[in-house]
């Protein structure tokens, strides 16, 4: 406790940041210099806000040891909306908690603007968290919750009040500032949690599945809201989710995680169009898997032969050497049906037609056997051909539609 009492965190000020939103009340006091005791002052310009280097996290001891994170390295840039995406238990929340300081890594370093923060307790990191459960203080009002961080930083009362007013306006909660947190709805609690975490102007905002408790419509609304807040504040957001759609629509870059490892880092488009591994392709969006044999290859492109003797050119990720029996992945919307089976690269029987409003899914039982192949067709007012279940059809692929992936 001794250390904790003496050395306080300074306000995690963003040096050249204008006041949030359109409220220019002049609360941007210059950062207090000198009062920093064992505190990071991330002033030097570096491209990376957070750098995770070879971080391992092992829970339990002896035979019960579980590696929640298995030597993970990733760099998160300044002002980026970065998403950690993966199924539950993949280690994404563990990584977030290591960055927040609730847990400490077994090995490796976590750098914030070039300085190792891994050994620091949470209250010495200019990083704030929006919790999945919101974790609002039930014995305080909305305004008291939002002002808590600033109060703990020892800010003057006038500054806290001005800043709380600003944050209330930013999240559109001015009307409810005197309410207890138990007296507001889930969506409103979410906004308060966001405002509370943003109020001390952290260098990095961590969001642990913050939208998972909201219903579909509210979630969509908050997704847009979050993007707006990130844009207006210029703070680096690290967002944890298991919802691939959420990740694709909101992120600047995504890290796909599985079993304590980061499998791929890239823009949503990279991840979706050029998945590095079968798991990534399978986890994000719908994917068809086809068996084939590599007959020849040039750098980056392999020619793969199907059982039907038809061949196709398929890309493959760097550092992977496809040979022999391989699995091809094709997105449902990158394939098309043709009424004449002979004109398709592969052929089969239409087993099911599922109407989704915006598009229609055609399930094709392939002649060579195996899983059903799904073709997604966007609906329009004038669909030229209508198909019937049981009809023989061919499937054509768009250029670059197929990729060979590691299993």
């Amino acid at each position, binding site marked *: 406790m001794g250390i904790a009492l003496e050395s306080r965190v300074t306000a995690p000020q963003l040096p050249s940041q204008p006041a949030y939103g359109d409220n220019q009340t002049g609360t941007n006091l210059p950062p207090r210099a000198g009062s920093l005791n064992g505190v990071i002052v991330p002033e030097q310009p570096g491209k990376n806000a957070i750098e995770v280097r070879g971080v391992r996290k092992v829970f339990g001891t002896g035979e019960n040891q579980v590696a929640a994170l298995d030597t993970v390295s990733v760099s998160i840039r300044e002002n980026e909306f970065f998403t950690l995406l993966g199924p539950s238990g993949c280690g994404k929340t563990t990584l977030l908690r290591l960055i927040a300081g609730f847990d400490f890594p077994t090995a490796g370093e976590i750098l914030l603007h070039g300085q190792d923060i891994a050994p620091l307790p949470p209250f010495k990191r200019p990083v704030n968290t929006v919790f999945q459960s919101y974790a*609002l203080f039930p014995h305080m009002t909305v305004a008291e919750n939002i002002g808590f961080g600033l109060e703990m930083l020892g800010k003057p009362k006038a500054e806290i009040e001005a800043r709380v007013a600003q944050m209330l306006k930013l999240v559109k909660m001015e009307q409810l500032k005197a309410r207890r947190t138990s007296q507001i709805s889930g969506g409103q609690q979410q906004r308060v949690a966001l405002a509370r975490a943003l109020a001390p102007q952290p260098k990095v905002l961590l969001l642990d599945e913050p939208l998972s408790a909201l219903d579909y419509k509210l979630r969509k609304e908050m997704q847009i809201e979050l993007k707006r807040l990130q844009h207006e504040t210029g703070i680096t957001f690290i967002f944890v989710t298991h919802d691939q759609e959420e990740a694709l629509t909101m992120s600047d870059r995504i890290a796909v995680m599985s079993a304590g490892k980061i499998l791929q880092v890239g823009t949503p488009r990279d991840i979706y169009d050029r998945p590095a591994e079968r798991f990534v392709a399978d986890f994000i969006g719908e994917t068809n898997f086809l068996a084939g044999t590599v007959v020849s290859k040039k750098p980056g492109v392999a020619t793969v032969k199907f059982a039907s003797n038809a061949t196709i050119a398929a890309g493959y990720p760097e550092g992977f050497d496809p040979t022999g029996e391989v699995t091809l992945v094709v997105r449902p919307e990158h394939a098309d049906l043709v009424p004449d089976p002979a004109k398709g690269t592969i052929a089969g029987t239409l087993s099911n037609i599922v109407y989704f409003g915006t598009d229609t899914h055609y399930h094709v039982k392939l002649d060579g056997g195996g899983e059903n192949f799904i073709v997604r067709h966007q609906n329009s007012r004038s669909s030229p051909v209508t198909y019937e279940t049981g009809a023989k059809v061919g499937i054509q692929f768009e250029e670059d539609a197929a990729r060979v992936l590691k299993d």
Partner: protein
Amino acid sequence: MTTATLSPTLPSKAALFEARAVKAGARRNRLLSLPALIIIGIFGVLPLLIICVYSFLVAAPYGGVQWQFSTDAYLNFLFQRDIFDDTLQFTPDFLIIYLRSFLFAVVTTVICLLLGFPTAYFMATRPPAQRNWWVLLITIPFWSNLLVRTLAIMFIIRDEGLINNALMALGVIDKPITMLYTNFAIQLGLLYAFLPFMVLPLYSSLEKLDFRLIEAAYDLYATRRQVLWRVIIPLSRPGIIAGCLLVFIPALGAYVTPLILGGGVHLMIGDLIAQQFGSGRNWPLGCAQALILMAAVLVALYFYVRNTSGKVQHG
């Protein structure tokens, strides 16, 4: 109370039915609470009334009462009637015993809280499977009689007791330290007797505490001490209040502990009242003393609850 009375302008069939159902429910609830009400009436309210009546009567020479109205019992609490000229003289003897008991009770409550809070916090932060064992350990003293346990303390702290013998054998002291029949002994006995009553309500409050709130506070730059004062203590306030009441009130009227460990020299309220019914043979005075104690506790409670209730609601 019912839907029907809330919306008298819309006496729909459903509302009427609901009103009838609510009424039937209320009747059933009253019936179910009858046994409890009878017990409270016979064994709680009635004796209190008897005490009340007796306190306004005259003491019979060999115990019991004479049916003659008198306020002497209350006057005797603060004054003594001069035998010769019948004037009242202020005698603070009883008041001093009351104040001393009050002091004992306050010290007991404060020390129990200081010792009990970390204990309860420790218990509440153990893995769930372990917690029940800790609760069991805390309740072990309840398995044996308080009298026996108090006598055991007596054997530990008396002049030839465990502590003195051990210290003398080790050569730390030459002659025994007198602990038995002192204020220290009473205080020790009270702490020992009432600590579990503080730990258990604190534990049940802390166990319900959402520890993610503590993480949230750390995340928002609160130091460990600030987390304690700003989050943990406010949120465990109901437990703190319950624990303090459960310790303070019985400690104020404690009887066995001060009697045995104080050796009858250092009286507390409980012993004083008991004396009036025993060797004192002054039942009205005993009744008056009991009622004055009760009134004092009620007044204290009233102010306590009035000052804290607003804050408890959301804790």
